[in-house]
C-alpha cells in the first residue's frame, strides 16, 4: 500500500496524487483514445452512447450524489437539451454555439425547478421532480409546430466549423472531448468551495447554514450545473439518435439514470462511470434472462422496470457505496493482503439523529 507523505498544500489540492489512481485514469483515457482503432463503427457508436451516459450520469451525480437532492426526472433535461440543440441547429445556429446554448437553457430550467423545490426533501422532492419530467414530456409531445410532437423530429447533421462529422469515429472523439472536459470541471468543483458546499448541504443543512452557506442558493446552483451538464449530454445524444421523439426521454429513462449513479456509487465521479458501464451491459443481461425465464414471465409487461427497481433497492440496502465502493474494498483487500480487516469499512455506531437540534 502506498503511503503518501505530503509536503505542501498543493499535494492536497492537486488531482490524482495517488500514483495507482493516476495510472489507472491515464490508462482509461489512453484506451478511450485508441478505441476507434480497435473496434468497428457499430461498436464505436455504442461506445459513444456509453460516453453520453457517463455525462448524463455525471450531471445527476452533481445533484443527487454530491448535493443530496434526489431527482426522479432527470431524463427531462436530457430531452430539453436534445430538442433545444436540434431546434437551434435547425435555425442555422452553428454547433459550437448551439450546444452551449442548449446546455444553458436546460440549466436555466433546472435552476427554476431548483428554486421551486428548494424547501422540499426526500419523498416530496422525488414526486416534484417526477411531475416535472412528466410535464416536460407532455409539452414536448404537444408543442407540434416546434418539436414535431409525437411524429418526432429529424436531427440536423453534425458539423463543426463547417466540417461535416459524418463518421462515427469523428463523433466519438468530439463526444469524448466534451465528456473529459466536464469530468475535469466537476472534479475541479469538488476540490473547491462550491463542491464542499454541496456536500455540506447534503450531509447537514443546519450546520451548513450556521457556517454561512446559503443552502437554498447552493441547491439552486446544484440544479443549474446538473441540468446544464445533462442538457449538454442530451444535445450530444440527439446526434446519435438521429430522430427525436418525446418517448425517448420518459420516466423509464429517468429511472435508468438514477439506477446508474446508485449502482455506480453515489458521491464519486468514478461512480458515474461505473454506473454507465452497468446500464450499458444491463440490457444484454436482461436479454439473456428473458431467454432463460418462462415465456409468460419474460414477456410480462413491466419486467424491466421491476428489475430496475429491485436493483436500486438491493444496492441501497446492501451496498450503499455502489460498485465503485465494492471495487475500493477489493483493491484494499489485495493491497493489504493478508491483513485486510472487514471492519475497516463497517460503519461506526450511528448516533441518534432524531433529536437533531435539541
Amino acid at each position, binding site marked *: 500500500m502506498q503511503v503518501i507523505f505530503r509536503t505542501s498544500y498543493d499535494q492536497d489540492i492537486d488531482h490524482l496524487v495517488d500514483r495507482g489512481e493516476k495510472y489507472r485514469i491515464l490508462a482509461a483515457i489512453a484506451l478511450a483514445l485508441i478505441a476507434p482503432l480497435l473496434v468497428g463503427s457499430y461498436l464505436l457508436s455504442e461506445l459513444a452512447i456509453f460516453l453520453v451516459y457517463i455525462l448524463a450520469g455525471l450531471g445527476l451525480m452533481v445533484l443527487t450524489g454530491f448535493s443530496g437532492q434526489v431527482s426522479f426526472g432527470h431524463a427531462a433535461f436530457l430531452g430539453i437539451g436534445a430538442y433545444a440543440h436540434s431546434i437551434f441547429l435547425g435555425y442555422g445556429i452553428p454547433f459550437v454555439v448551439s450546444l452551449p446554448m442548449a446546455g444553458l437553457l436546460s440549466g436555466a430550467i433546472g435552476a427554476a425547478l431548483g428554486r421551486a423545490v428548494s424547501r422540499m426533501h426526500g419523498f416530496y422532492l422525488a414526486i416534484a421532480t417526477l411531475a416535472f419530467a412528466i410535464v416536460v414530456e407532455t409539452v414536448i409531445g404537444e408543442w407540434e409546430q416546434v418539436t414535431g410532437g409525437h411524429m418526432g423530429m429529424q436531427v440536423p447533421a453534425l458539423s463543426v466549423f463547417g466540417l461535416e462529422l459524418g463518421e462515427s469515429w469523428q463523433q466519438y472523439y468530439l463526444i469524448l472531448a466534451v465528456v473529459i472536459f466536464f469530468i475535469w*470541471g466537476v472534479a475541479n468543483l469538488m476540490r473547491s468551495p462550491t463542491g464542499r458546499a454541496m456536500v455540506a448541504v447534503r450531509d447537514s443543512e443546519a450546520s451548513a447554514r450556521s457556517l454561512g452557506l*446559503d443552502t437554498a442558493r447552493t441547491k439552486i446552483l446544484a440544479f443549474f450545473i446538473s441540468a446544464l451538464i445533462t442538457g449538454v449530454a442530451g444535445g450530444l445524444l440527439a446526434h446519435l439518435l438521429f430522430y427525436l421523439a418525446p418517448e425517448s426521454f420518459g420516466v423509464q429513462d429517468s429511472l435508468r439514470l438514477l439506477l446508474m449513479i446508485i449502482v455506480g456509487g453515489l458521491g464519486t465521479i468514478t461512480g458515474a462511470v461505473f454506473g454507465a458501464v452497468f446500464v450499458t451491459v444491463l440490457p444484454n443481461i436482461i436479454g439473456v434472462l428473458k431467454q432463460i425465464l418462462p415465456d409468460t414471465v419474460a414477456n410480462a409487461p413491466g419486467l424491466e422496470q421491476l428489475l430496475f427497481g429491485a436493483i436500486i433497492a438491493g444496492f441501497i440496502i446492501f451496498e450503499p457505496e455502489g460498485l465503485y465502493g465494492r471495487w475500493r474494498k477489493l483493491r484494499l483487500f489485495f493491497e493489504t493482503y493478508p491483513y485486510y480487516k472487514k471492519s475497516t469499512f463497517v460503519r461506526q455506531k450511528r448516533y441518534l439523529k432524531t433529536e437533531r437540534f435539541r
Partner: protein
Amino acid sequence: MSELIVENLNLSFGGIKAINDVSFTVEAGDIYAIIGPNGAGKSTIFNAISRIYTPDSGSIRYRGQELLERAAHQVVDLGIARTFQNIELFEKATVLENLLVGRSSKIRTNWISEFFFTRNVRKEERVHRRKTEEVLDLLNMQQYRYERVSDLAYGARKNVELARALCAEPEILLLDEPASGLNPEETTDMSFWLKDIKEELGVTIVMVEHDMSLVGRIADRCMALANGAVLAVGSVAEVQSDPHVQAAYLGQVAA
C-alpha cells in the same frame, strides 16, 4: 463591553412555551455558561441566536446589530460560530473537508472560476488550508486530517465540530454541551482548549453544559434556566447556591 444582548425573548412550539421572557447579557472575553435541567430551553436559545428558529418576540443584538433581521447564513459573518448538541458534521467528508467548510464565510471565489480552477482559486485554497492547519495544530488533531468523519469515535467528532467552528475565525462561540459524552480525560483536554481559545484567541464563549465541575473550572459567569425562564444569573458559586436553582434540580430528581 457587552457583546451579546438578549432581551425579552419568547419562543413557543405550538402550545409549549420553550422560552419565556429570557434576557441576558454576555460580556466580551467571558466564558458564559448556561445550565438547567433537560428541556429548560438552552438549545432553543442557541437555535434562536443562529436563526434556525424564529422567536415570537424579543431582540438579540450582537455588537449593536439585530440578529433577528438576518438570515441563518448571515449570522456567521458577524463573527458568531456554533456547535450542535447532537453533532452536525458532514459525515461522508474528511475532517479536512469539514474544516474547510468552516471557512465558508471567507470564500471569495465563484463557481465558474472554480470549475476551471484558475490560479486565483488555487491561491485562495492555499490560504484556507493554512488556516485550517492552525486550528488542527491548536487542538492537536493532525492525525485525523484525512479521516472520514463517519469513521471517527464520538470524542473525536466533538473536537472536529469545535475545530470547524474555529475555522470561521469567530469572535464569539456558542457551544452546545461541548463535554457531553466525553470521558474524563477528554473533558480535561476540552477545558484546557476552551481556556486557550478564550485567552489566546480572545474568543468569547457561551456554552450550555451539564458537567458542573467543568462549568466551575472555567466559566466566568453562569445563567440557570428552567422551563424556559431564567432562575438565576451570577458567578457559578452564586448560581449553584441559589435556592430556586437547587429546587429546580431537585424537582427534576424527584420527578
